């Protein structure tokens, strides 16, 4: 069975390791924070200027001056810090942030990602995504494998305007976990009950498949 958004977040949470500083994008990536192991030390960074983000505030305790990059009200944990936007992207550019998790409309086998614009239709802007993907060493994309029309978003080449080139390392979708290698997408895991054939049929790009592909453990 294909995963739902929370399951995708749960699987990605397994990639978050002890002592990581992590930047979470809007959408599925935001959910990852809910599933990170509690016995490890992780700090969440939000590019609008906070490190050490905590959960949403209790009702009545929202502070208009304390939000995340999704403009949601948040809290901070002990040890948190605030800083300005230039400083925030400074720590991103200088690779102090260990892991970036973001959404995408398309990912290609060369590691290109497109997630900010559909010409003539949707122009919301790139926000911090271009800065993040250009500088982060470790980028995991959380996305749907196919669009609503059933077309693959895992491609040989992106068709939409790019956000970054050759930067994505790993992709987790409702069907599969894939690593991007110099030779293209390598299938690592499949969603429980989803066959390798189904994943191949849902993927426009070539998939490197070596041996038995294990099911994800969610």
């Amino acid at each position, binding site marked *: 069975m294909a995963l739902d958004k929370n399951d995708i977040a749960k699987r990605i949470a397994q990639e978050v390791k002890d002592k990581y500083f992590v930047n979470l994008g809007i959408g599925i990536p935001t959910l990852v924070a809910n599933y990170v192991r509690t016995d490890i030390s992780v700090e969440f960074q939000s590019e609008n200027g906070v490190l050490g983000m905590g959960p949403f505030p209790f009702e009545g305790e929202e502070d*208009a001056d304390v939000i*995340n990059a999704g403009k949601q009200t948040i809290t901070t944990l002990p040890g948190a810090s605030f800083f300005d936007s*230039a400083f925030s992207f400074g720590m991103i550019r200088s690779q102090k942030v260990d892991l970036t998790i973001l959404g995408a409309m398309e990912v290609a086998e060369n590691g290109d990602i497109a997630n900010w614009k559909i010409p003539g239709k949707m122009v919301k*802007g790139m*926000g911090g*995504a*271009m800065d993040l993907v250009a500088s982060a060493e470790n980028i995991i994309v959380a996305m749907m494998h196919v669009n609503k029309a059933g077309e693959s978003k895992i491609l040989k080449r992106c068709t939409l305007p790019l956000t970054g080139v050759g930067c994505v390392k790993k992709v987790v979708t409702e069907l599969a976990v894939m690593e991007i290698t110099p030779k293209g997408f390598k299938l690592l895991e499949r969603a429980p009950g989803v066959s390798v054939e189904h994943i191949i049929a849902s993927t426009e790009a070539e998939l490197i498949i070596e041996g038995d592909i294990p099911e994800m453990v969610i």
Partner: protein
Amino acid sequence: MINKKVNSVQEALQGIEDGMTIMLGGFGLCGIPENSIAELVQKGTTNLTCISNNAGVDDFGLGLLLQKRQIKKMISSYVGENAEFERQMLSGELEVELTPQGTLAEKCRAAQAGIPAFFTPAGYGTEVAEGKEVREFNGKMHIMELAYKADFSIVKAWKGDEAGNLIFKGTARNFNAPMAGAAKITIAEVEELVPVGTLDPNQIHIPGIMVQRIFKGEKFEKRIEQRTTRKRE
């Protein structure tokens, strides 16, 4: 002490004329100079080029200036959440320059720091890089970006003193800090304006030299864009 205090938002915004380029602090609706924006609507200044990370929502923030067609060009990183903006952009009424957020912040900081240009990897290989100088440093491709040139910078701080020293609160520091001093004239609107000597010099985020005019905002609505909460267990 050089006193920067002005007594009203009207006095603070003197000299802002049609066709000027203005930086406005804030991220989403967090930390926006809302009193100054309301006064710009009142003043009816038009043909403005606004450098601001976002464009407000339909009925608040820069959305108010967009509604009255006072903005000719927006320079932003993210402009979702604003239907009127999208309409004006797609119809060609509004010129839009979308800029990666870190680049936008650094173009402000560069102006504040007297640096004319810098190289960043953000946007390399994308349409953002079109027409820009590309150089390789340490095996990685970068594009050259220029510091902004603006007539006025309008920032919002939590506390300020009459010398123009500023302290921000929470994530409202965002673009307000790098925009302070990044234009010919910087105007600061603050929630609390205190006499000099009240603020601890160790706690100042922006020194008063960056600010030419400071005033206490009459009213801060501080609207929340996405009110997210959790239930008490």
